[in-house]
């Protein structure tokens, strides 16, 4: 059986287990071994994982839970009891939380046991996974290129067949962009639909967990067991309506809006070609393609890079060396509390984290708050209004997911602004809190291109349906990335 295991997506593997043709233990061991081999490859692997289970968790194989025992890779920043949860940061090296994130617990109860933790940019700050304190991950389509980020480890692992599916988090594009760059499906659900309890926070008003999977059906299946109100997260909601495995194959009468602001200038030609070809496919499925305008979208990135760092500067204040994680004493001033704080944070945080903590601290400072944080929140409101107005005209909005295909390792590490532009098409949806999915829509220069489909708040099922129909017509083949 194991020769064919790699070809099985998560939903297909679940069906095999339910039919008694495959055991959950066999599947767990298969992926555990593949992940462990990549992890042990030490530089020659993809660098997807920060931890791999030694054995299946007790109880994971009992009964016939809805997810049947299909193992789950989880981004490092989800707290997992007794398992290193470091959010890609040296300041949390070896940190073992005493509790497990709600969404990871829910999925384990539904029958998707944790088998590995995946690499990420430090505290989810980055678009290439090069900002990880534990070394970069690589893109299985081309190992000299980045897998995107910050959920780069999860995306690369799923694309390479080192995990049947994975959890990531998306703050400004951190699921959708690596999914696009690795040729897989990644979805950021509506803000509030999935509990954030146990996710090591980057920017609280934007962070949202979501699935990274080989196809839309798997994404829907995983998401189905993630959503729901959590009494431990005051910003979580009971998901209205129902999510189901999508079956749509046509887009008859569906109005797809293409915002000029996010589908022209700044987007690489090869990406635009693949995107436009996908629109033609959609038209062939019966969709109406129309232009829409999101007048404030060009300001989204600027607003995002005020709001997210501001929240991050506060969220990361707890890493002070007092209670957990790294504590570095200043040898010159061993008894000085402030020196301990300074030394610990100086040594523990990487340069991008320091940059954003400083940006955010500045934006919240007395005398600057109104000009920066206050103004950025106004822009955020305008962007949400833009989307509301656009959704009066169209059912869904489509854009390229990322402006470029996967770039080379080191290519943008010296130019933070160039790196930030990766989120140009994904950040507006994050600021508006609306659901958005990226599915692979073709290749450019032999590298995957993603198309993003976004809908109004809590239209996640509609987004998945449209993605499913388009996916069928596009017939993207990601097998070249399997290792």
């Amino acid at each position: 059986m194991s020769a064919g295991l790699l070809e099985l997506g998560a939903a297909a593997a679940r069906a095999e287990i339910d039919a008694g043709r495959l055991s959950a233990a066999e599947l767990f061991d298969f992926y555990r071994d593949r992940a462990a081999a990549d992890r042990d490859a030490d530089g020659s692997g993809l660098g997807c994982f920060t931890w791999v289970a030694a054995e299946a968790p007790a109880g994971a194989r009992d009964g016939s839970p809805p997810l049947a025992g299909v193992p789950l890779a989880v981004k490092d920043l989800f707290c997992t009891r007794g398992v290193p949860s470091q959010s890609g940061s040296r300041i949390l090296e070896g940190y073992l939380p005493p509790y497990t994130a709600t969404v990871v617990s829910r999925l384990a109860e539904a029958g998707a046991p944790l088998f590995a933790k995946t690499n990420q940019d430090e505290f989810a700050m980055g678009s290439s996974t090069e900002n990880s304190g534990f070394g970069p991950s690589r893109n299985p389509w081309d190992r000299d290129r980045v897998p995107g980020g910050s959920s780069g480890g999860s995306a690369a692992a799923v694309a390479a067949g080192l995990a049947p599916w994975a959890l990531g988090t998306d703050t400004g594009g951190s699921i959708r962009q690596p999914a696009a760059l690795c040729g897989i499906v990644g979805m950021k659900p509506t803000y509030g639909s999935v509990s954030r309890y146990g996710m090591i926070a980057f920017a609280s008003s934007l962070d949202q967990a979501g699935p990274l999977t080989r196809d839309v059906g798997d994404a829907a299946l995983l998401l189905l067991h993630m959503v729901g109100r959590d009494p431990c997260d005051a910003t979580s909601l009971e998901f209205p309506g129902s999510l189901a495995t999508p079956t749509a194959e046509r887009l008859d009468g569906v109005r797809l809006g293409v915002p000029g602001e996010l589908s022209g200038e700044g987007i690489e030609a090869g990406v635009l070609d693949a995107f436009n070809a996908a629109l033609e496919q959609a038209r062939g499925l019966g969709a109406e393609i129309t232009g829409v305008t999101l007048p404030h979208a060009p300001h989204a990135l600027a607003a995002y890079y005020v709001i997210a760092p501001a929240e991050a500067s506060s969220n990361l204040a707890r890493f002070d060396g007092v209670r957990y994680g790294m504590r570095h004493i200043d040898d010159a001033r061993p008894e000085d509390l402030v020196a301990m704080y300074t030394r610990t944070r100086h040594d523990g945080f990487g340069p991008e984290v320091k940059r954003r903590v400083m940006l955010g601290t500045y934006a919240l400072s007395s005398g600057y708050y109104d000009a920066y944080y206050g103004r950025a929140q106004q822009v955020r409101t305008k962007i949400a209004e833009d989307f509301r107005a656009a959704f009066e005209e169209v059912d869904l909005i489509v854009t390229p997911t990322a402006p470029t295909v996967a770039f080379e390792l080191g290519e943008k590490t010296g130019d933070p602004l160039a790196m930030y532009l990766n989120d140009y098409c994904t950040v507006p949806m994050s600021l508006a809190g609306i659901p958005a999915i990226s599915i692979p829509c073709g290749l450019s220069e032999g590298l995957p291109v993603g198309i993003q489909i976004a809908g109004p708040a809590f239209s996640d099922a509609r987004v998945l349906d449209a993605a499913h129909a388009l996916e069928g017509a596009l017939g993207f083949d990601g097998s070249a990335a399997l290792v």
Partner: protein
Amino acid sequence: MSEAAAGNGAAPGGLEAVIGLEIHVQLATATKMFCSCALSFGEPPNTHTCPVCLGLPGSLPVANARAVHFGLMIGLALGSELAPRSIFHRKNYFYPDLPKGYQISQYDEPLCLGGALGEVRIHRVHLEEDAAKLIHVGASGRIHGSDASLVDFNRGGTPLAEIVTEPDLRTPEQAGEWLRLLRTTLRALGVSDVNMEEGSLRCDANISLRPAGSGQLGVKTELKNMNSFRFIERGIKAEIARQAKVIETGGTVVQETLHFDPDSGAITSLRSKEEAHDYRYFPEPDLLPVTIEPAMLEQARAAMPELPAQRAQRLTAELGLSEDSARALAFRGELAPYFEAALAAGADPAPEPQALANWVTVELLPRLQDGEDPGGSRVAPAALAELVGLVGAKRVSVGAARQVLDRLVSDGGDAGAIVEQEGLGAIGGGEELEAVVAAAIAANADAAERVRQGNAKAIGPIVGQVMRETKGRADGTEVASLINAQLGV
């Protein structure tokens, strides 16, 4: 500046003190402000903690509905405007007692705005979380110079209501009295233990001086964390004197945060305005705004007890107490409950309410230790009621009753029984007293003669002897009239 040089509470030299208070009240909820840990009362360190109140990575706060309910009750008691929507902010600063690196508090949209208690206007009331407790090992007892500092997170996250007054107070004594009224009000509400020594009620004072009668405000200093009523009055007094001296010697008062050391009476600077934190307040993204639903308001209204000011009015209206007596009882701690328990004790003869009020406030209270609750003393309410009833019926003289009260304070017991045992019952109208009076007149022939000749004041020595002979059991007025009768004047 030493406390001894501070003199009395009034500001000297034509200056007037302007005082505002900031009071932190630990709310007596079952669980902490943002997690489900039970509140801690002296348990072993770090036993009432969880990922949320330890600020562990990934944890999130959830606001305690009971704390909001208590906040609304406080707002109702103070006549505040209750915000239909208020929001939590993060107040960012680094300190080891603050596990998240920020305190969740309220900033520009607090739960309650405005209001008044007595003559003092309320600026605002808001909810926040308490910090953890630092224990500094070593001689200094402060973080600087200690051998080690330990953090006990049991207290961290305890719900606090912060009550801020307008600067309507003028003297330390007034501040102390008002704070007692606030404490009584909060205790009546049942929202807090309001125990200053245990830290469930903590007070900071903002103090400035200005020329008496001026409408302008001077530069203020903030005196931090005084943990008893006595320290608050002493601390404010010392700070007024310090500022007055600065002004009198031609200096200017600097805006700063100060610490009052009750042992030495010294005031030291914690930080100046230049060193003040920039707290980088911003709306807490992990919490939704607090919206007050009509049902929550209804619930808070239904839970409101009789408040001290209302109780004072009732005592005057129903029992005919003087306003001063009624306020003295109702505004101070457990006096009113004690008084009402005594009144309801069914003593025979029954005490007259005003007389009973006087005995509680004028006789009993000064006999107790400073701040002691009469309900916790050996004097049972029924015993005091009986004693006052006996006085009213003239069966025990006032002097004898004071002796009985002394016995009740030291040993407790039954008033009637003590009167009986000690033979302190009044002697009046009978042959026994007539005989004592006759003997006293005989023994003071000179004085008696002068009384006969119209010198009324000369009666003193004769009365004195009668009282001595009767051990104070006789009524002074009756003794005087008996003497006069026997002398034929």
